[in-house]
Structures are given as structure tokens and as C-alpha cells.
């Protein structure tokens, strides 16, 4: 098993006729993903690369039974595209688009609250279940099928981590790039929960960054709920304190957000934290070994 995606996932691409939409559609299909439809308003009826294009997601779902959407719609229309997917009965929407205004995402996130659709992103590399299905812009070749779940706020740093895992002989069950925007769909905890329940996943690697309090929240959740070993890396230990305006950010985060705080909290909650970005694979091996010892 895996989480979110498998070989039966049927994918519709929103914004398929755009340059990067089309490029990555081809890449995903070459990887083996089952791309069944595209949506571009006004271009319904044509075929692109042999894929039927519809005017609406609803039509695409009706004719092709698509259950996953990959969104490449440009920022002004991206939030609307997410809502359209939710309305059409899509189960998982992966929004790659970078640069969606906050106001649009506040409303979109509120509207999909309580709906069955899961949202990954926006501004994320996507989701991949190695050897089965890729929905996103990550390079497929670095992945290897296995038992490690990967969840990350970063894009390219995730590729680095996955490459190190693969080189350490640790294949992946599913890799989820949740995105680095202030407002995202699934958060660390939502993904960790799925990995916790997935019988194929034996351990999880988590990649965080400075800013916000999501890593701290995840750390506490792991201590209370996680049955599997977790290793992590936090980027930005040496990042200089930025220029900032005002106090509001500091008030609501209560001073959270620094790399040291995140690393300390994760370690306190039993997570093995990689001391360097060159040792992410090692940290995962160490976490698995520690867990192995515990079992004995």
C-alpha cells in the first residue's frame, strides 16, 4: 500500500494547455501515471498529446472518472481551480501553482473545510508513490519503491533528501511535498497520520524550514501518536534574522519559528534530527535502528 496515490489513480490536469502544465503532464505520463483528462476553459473538445481536454472538471470527471487533479492554473485563477475540483468530486487535488494571493487561499481553504477532497499545496512539488504514480514536478528517477514515507515543506530540498534515502538503500512508500506557502491544504500532521496508518510505511522522514510553528505542532503530535520512527531535517540554522515590520507575527507565533527551537522540540519529542543536510539518509537509518533496538 501507499498513501494518497496508487496505480489506480486517475488524473485530470487543470491547466493542461499551459507550457508547464503540458510539459509535466508528459513527464508524469512517462513515469506511468494514468492521466485521463485535461481541463482548460474554452478549449473543451480538443485532444492534446492524445489526452481529451474538457471545459470543466465536472465534465472531465463525468466522462473519465478522474479522482485526482493536478493543478497548473496560473495564480489569478488557481484558487478557483481548487474549488472547482472539490465541487466536481475530486478526492485529491495537488496544486503546483506558486504565487496564489493569501486572500484567495483563506477563502478557498475555508470553503473546502469539511469536504471530502484533500488538498496538497499550493506551491509544492507534488506527490509521488514510486513505481506507481507521480502527480507533480519532482524528478521521478531519484525515487525508489520502499517503506519510508517522506513529508516536506520544501521543494528541491525534498529531492536532495529522497536521493540520500535512495542511496542509503531506503526506498519510499510515498513522498508528499506539502508546500511552503503560509496557507496550505494538508499539513505535516495530516500526512503523518496517513503514514502512521499505512501498513507499508515503516518510518517517516520529515523536512522542515524556519518560520511558522508547523514543525513544533508536528513534533508534539509525533510524541503523542506516532507508532513509527521519524527522522527530520530543518533548513535555515544559519539563516540571518531578516528585516521585519511590526510585531503581529511575533505575537501570534509566540516566538516560534527559529531553527534551533524546532530542532530542540523535535529531538525532545523523540525525532532523530539530521545535524547536516548532507546526513539526511544517515539520520533515517539511525532512527530505524533505534526503533529496532526498542522492539528487542
Amino acid at each position: 500500500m501507499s498513501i494518497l496515490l496508487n496505480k489506480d489513480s486517475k488524473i485530470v490536469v487543470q491547466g493542461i494547455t499551459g507550457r508547464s502544465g503540458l510539459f509535466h503532464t508528459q513527464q508524469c505520463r512517462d513515469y506511468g501515471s494514468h492521466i485521463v483528462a485535461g481541463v482548460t476553459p474554452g478549449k473543451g473538445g480538443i485532444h492534446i498529446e492524445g489526452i481529451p481536454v474538457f471545459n470543466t472538471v465536472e465534465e472531465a470527471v463525468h466522462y473519465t472518472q478522474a479522482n485526482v487533479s493536478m493543478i497548473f492554473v496560473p495564480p489569478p485563477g488557481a484558487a478557483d481551480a481548487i474549488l472547482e475540483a472539490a465541487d466536481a468530486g475530486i478526492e485529491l487535488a495537488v496544486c503546483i501553482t506558486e504565487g496564489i494571493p493569501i486572500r484567495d487561499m483563506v477563502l478557498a481553504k475555508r470553503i473546502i473545510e469539511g469536504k471530502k477532497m484533500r488538498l496538497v499545496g499550493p506551491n509544492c512539488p507534488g506527490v509521488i508513490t514510486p513505481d506507481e504514480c507521480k502527480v507533480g514536478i519532482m524528478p521521478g528517477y531519484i525515487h525508489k519503491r520502499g517503506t519510508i514515507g517522506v513529508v516536506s515543506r520544501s521543494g528541491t530540498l525534498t529531492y536532495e533528501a529522497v536521493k540520500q534515502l535512495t542511496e542509503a538503500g531506503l526506498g519510499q512508500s510515498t513522498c508528499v511535498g506539502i508546500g511552503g506557502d503560509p496557507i496550505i491544504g494538508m499539513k505535516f500532521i495530516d500526512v503523518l497520520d496517513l503514514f502512521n496508518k499505512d501498513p507499508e510505511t515503516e518510518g517517516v522522514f520529515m523536512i522542515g524550514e524556519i518560520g511558522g510553528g508547523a514543525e513544533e505542532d508536528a513534533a508534539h503530535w509525533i510524541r503523542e501518536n506516532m507508532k513509527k520512527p521519524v527522522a527530520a531535517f530543518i533548513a535555515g540554522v544559519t539563516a540571518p534574522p531578516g528585516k521585519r515590520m511590526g510585531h503581529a507575527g511575533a505575537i501570534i507565533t509566540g516566538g516560534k519559528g527559529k531553527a534551533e527551537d524546532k530542532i530542540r522540540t523535535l529531538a525532545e519529542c523523540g525525532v532523530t534530527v539530521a545535524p547536516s543536510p548532507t546526513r539526511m539518509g544517515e539520520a533515517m537509518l539511525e532512527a530505524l535502528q533505534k526503533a529496532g533496538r526498542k522492539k528487542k
Partner: protein
Amino acid sequence: MNIHEYQAKEILNAYGIPVPRGRVALTADQVERAAKMMGGRCVVKAQIYAGGRGKAGGVKLVHHPEQAQELGKELFTKRLVTPQTGPEGLRVRRILVEEAVEIAREFYLSLTLDRETSRYCLIASAEGGVEIEEVAAKSPDKIHILTIDPFTGLRPYQARKIALALGLTGSVCEDCVELILNLYRLCLEKDCFLVEVNPLVVTKAGWLMAMDAKINFDDNAMFRHREYPDMLDYSQLDTLEINAGKYDLSYIKLQGNIGCMVNGAGLAMATLDVLKEFGGEPANFLDVGGGATREKVAEAFKIILQDSDVKGIFVNIFGGIMRCDVIAQGIIEAASEVHCTFPIVVRMDGSKVEEGKQLLLESGLNVQIGENLGDGAQRIVKMLG
């Protein structure tokens, strides 16, 4: 995107939120004239893109126009260093001269995005002023936070609860309700990431007034607000950062001598971390982004080289969206154009990686290939030895 206090106050004023009478001065003589208009006794406020100005001497009450002029002269010639500017401080190019207002009480009021709830929240406190973060840390019960449901918006009864919690009564309380509702409307219509009024005051005459204001626009919403770029004060930004912005590159100048070019913010941060681990000092943070073109990479390279501290360059590109041969061509073009002889270490991974490496090795540049992140970082540190 940040704007100055005086610009923020113009926006508040347009939304019916009272602000002190004021004028913007670009020279010390204009400061004097403005002070005369205010009747001599006035507040002189340096306009910079950071908070903490008061304690740094950037905000002062003066009693005569001559005194205002003197202070103006002083402020225009120095870099103001506050806890929020970083150690290099910021130049002062504009000064706001305002009427002195007799203050009875001070409050804190702001609207910003709360990542945890994915909603805007209103933050208010009866303990306004400069120590607000300390108040928040030590006595969180004095901070009132209201999370706003975007379906209902901010309702008058919610604004009233906040106004009452601030200890306001009677007509001032109702004025405050209106002010809070207007602030929320402003926040949405202007696509703000932050609107902060600190302090919001009740004057001795019994009026509410925004004594200081900060607005930070959501960069992602620029396409809805074509006028925003005109509001930028370029004197507040690093020249290289401005150039980078033109090409949609994210660049931050640092203190070291290794120029860095990386794709993706997380990997860029990790690259700085690993350089430091091996004893190197990065000269900058530079994220060329996901959809970088050859042109973008070339510009990024030029921007790195404009920094005279740079003695070598570390390129760390993990392709996914990007093709390595395209990156290599961008590097070669830019390096040839500016006759770069510095050592360059390129670590590339992703599609067309072999083609990219080949192009670089055949380019005649002083370039080495890093086999992985650690190897690349070690090589550049060693080359600069």
C-alpha cells in the same frame, strides 16, 4: 512588500481612520517648513522599512522649527539601526513631520494572517506601544486575539467585544467598532499581509487616532494592484536585491565571500548551512526559483558577481523543473560575458545532468563539478582556502 508609515497613514485616512496631520519632507529645509506649518511643536519621524525607530532616535518630539531642521539634517545623513533592521541599518530619505498630539491612552491593534488557522486574525491589547511583544510573552491574557471566519467576515458585535475589552466606553467605543471594521475592509481590499496600528490612541480631546501604522502588502496579489510598485522606496532596498527582484529572483546579501546560486528556498538555506559546516562563509542567499530560464540563471550569476566580496561561486541546482544543460548554458554565458575568473563549483542533479556537466567542463571556465552537496561545498571552500 513594505511601505512607509506616511503611505500607510494615507491609506488609513482613505478608509476613514483618523491620523495626525502631517507632511512628508525630503530635505532638512522641508522639515523646517513643515514644522512651522504644524506650529513649531511637532513630531519628526524618520521613514524606514523597519520598526523600533523610537528607541534608535528616529522619532522625536521637537519644540521649534530650527530644532526640527537640525534633527532633519542629522537623520538624513545617518543609517538608522534598530533591532528590526539588521546591523547595517537603513538610510533615511524621507521624514514625516506630524502635529504633536496629546495622548490619553495607547492601544495595540493589528490584522494579520494566522498560519495555524489559515485565517486572518485581529490582535488587540490595551497595553499598546513599543513593548507589545514583551507583553505578549509575559502576560498573554492582556492580548486579545480574534480569528475571523472569511464566510462571515468581521462582525460589528465582534469588533465591539474587542473595543470593550480595550476598556473603551460610550461614543469612543462605537468609534472603535467602526475603525476596526474599516481596518478589516482595508486589509482585504488592499490585499495586506499585515496592517498594524501601534499605538492606536485616545487623545486628550477624546478622539481615536492612529499614531503609527505599518502595512505590508501580499506580494502574490500584485497583479490586482498595479499601483503598488510605484509606492516602493528603493533607498530602503539593497541595490542587488532590487536587480534580483526584476528577474523574479530571491536574493539576500550576506557577509561572506562564497556566492551561492541555488534553486528552491529550502535547498538554498540548506546550502548555506552546509557551507558554514565546512568552514565557508556564504556571500548571499539566492533562490533562482522553480521555473528559471537560461536568462534568469545568467542574471542571477551577474548579480552574484556584482557583490565585490565574492571570491568564488557555488552553484547547487537540483533539477526537477529545471534542466541541467539549460543551467550550464546560463552559467557559461554569464561567466563569459563578465569575464569571471573566480573558481566555480557546480553541483547539479536532475534531468540532462551529464549534458550539463559536459558543457561546463568544455567551457574553459575555472570550474569544478561537485558530485553531491557535501562534496561541492567542500570543494569550493578548499578552492578559496
